[in-house]
């Protein structure tokens, strides 16, 4: 009896492990096929532009609003800590470094996974369940090239752009709070930032992070859509997985990238 139960459990563990690994394998093959399809997208810029509008422009508003508030809150918190040491003039340093190095790329990655990633998964999954992808295959048009690749490339391009917009608006939010509410001189605010923020170490590293996050989040989103079970339940699960896995991937990768970039 007990031996049976143990065997059953072992079997389950084995099965789950195998299916996880085969998923990773499928996702890798899928990525390879997407990358091979990219030249097709470059010949069809119209497909790309359309998707850039959907994943990029339509995510802009949420990025702007979130960026503004994050920057404003950071300035307030920085002031509370720094004023005790009489160092409130360094407020711009704290705001800009945390935005450029961490919060800009991470927040954008998370918001993108929630807003655009879930929409991509749902759209592709619905195309699959309504046989649009099969139909395209039978019309001898490869959906990998026509549907998946433009969405993938659009996402990879959009995330770094959105990140830089997030960074800019967050710093402006911090500037507004610092100068208008907290009475820091404008000149001090900007010169502190100018003297201490390094273009390569801080700005470029932040952009590299956002490129990695964008790549991974869009990869997860299009794969989940393409791999989902073509039922309403399967579609719901796939959309949830995109947001959960996408967000966790952003946070996990952020730790690894930070450790690598700043030589800690």
């Amino acid at each position, binding site marked *: 009896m007990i031996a049976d139960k143990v065997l059953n459990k072992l079997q389950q563990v084995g099965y789950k492990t195998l299916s996880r690994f085969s998923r990773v394998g499928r996702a890798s093959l899928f990525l390879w096929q997407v990358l091979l399809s990219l030249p097709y997208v470059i010949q069809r810029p119209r497909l790309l532009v359309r998707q850039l509008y959907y994943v990029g422009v339509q995510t802009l508003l949420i990025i702007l609003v979130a960026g503004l508030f994050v920057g404003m809150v950071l300035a307030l918190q920085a002031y509370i800590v720094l004023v005790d040491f009489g160092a409130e003039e360094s407020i711009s340093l704290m705001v800009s470094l945390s935005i450029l190095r961490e919060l800009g790329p991470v927040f954008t990655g998370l918001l993108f996974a929630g807003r655009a990633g879930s929409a991509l998964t749902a759209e592709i999954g619905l195309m699959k369940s309504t046989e649009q992808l099969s139909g395209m295959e039978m*019309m001898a048009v490869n959906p990998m090239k026509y549907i998946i690749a433009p969405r993938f490339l659009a996402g990879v391009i959009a995330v770094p752009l959105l990140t830089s917009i997030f960074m800019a608006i967050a710093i402006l939010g911090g500037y507004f709070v610092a100068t208008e509410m907290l009475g820091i001189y404008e000149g001090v605010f900007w010169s502190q930032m100018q003297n201490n923020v390094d273009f390569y170490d801080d700005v470029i590293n932040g952009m590299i992070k956002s490129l990695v996050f964008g790549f991974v989040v869009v990869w997860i989103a299009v794969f989940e859509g393409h791999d989902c079970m073509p039922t309403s339940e399967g579609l719901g699960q796939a959309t949830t997985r995109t947001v959960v896995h996408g967000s966790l991937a952003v946070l996990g990768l952020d730790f690894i990238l930070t450790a690598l970039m700043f030589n800690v």
Partner: protein
Amino acid sequence: MIFDNIDMDIERGKVTAIMGPSGSGKTTLLKLIGGQLKPDSGSVIVDGENVHQLSQSALYDLRRRTMGMLFQSGALLTDLSVYDNVAFPLREHTTLPEEAIHHLILLKLEAVGLRGARHLMPAELSGGMARRVALARAIALDPQMIMFDEPFTGQDPISMGVLVKLIHDMNQALGMTAVVVSHDVNETASISDYIYVISDGKVVQSGSPDALKHSDSAWVKQFLDGDADGPVPFHYAAEPLIDDLMGGIKSVRS
């Protein structure tokens, strides 16, 4: 296993029907022919080429040259209008100028009677209209063969009549080979030249519609006549009712 040792010939220029109960793998068969699924063993030959041994580009080439498929749902691209849906294969696969494509689309839509609906979006179409648009799209590149996946399912009598007429006309007028997968006995029998009846992964019987009507297989008879009870029993396999009733509530769970 879905199919066991199945052997079918689909003759050029004829209407061949594949009939069988729901869940007998009819759609799977079409996907095998179209190369969307791979069999564990066996081969599918279309126009002299073994579908499952072709490279991806050769397979796409074969599909473009020889096959069209009409899906149950129509599978129209939901973000394109009726006009652009029919234009889709032409724009993807030909270098025709837009003017020529315009003429072709109007002619194809005229053939299915929906020239006036060209500005509608797929969401605005009824199920029957969506299938007709999908048919116009499937014939846009003049394929040698069209596969129909359950073309009559869920259609009102008029749409059904229209589809029957369209399949018949395309075959007669254009000499297009048609493969019709269906379980609507009368409609399918009225237009097909040859019928395969499949069940449990095997061809149970095949022949012309007339020959099948006089079949002496009790199973085929039940299927064609739509009898509730027969070789396919009305009841799902279960223990006798009296035992079940006396077994108490627990029997539901065990």
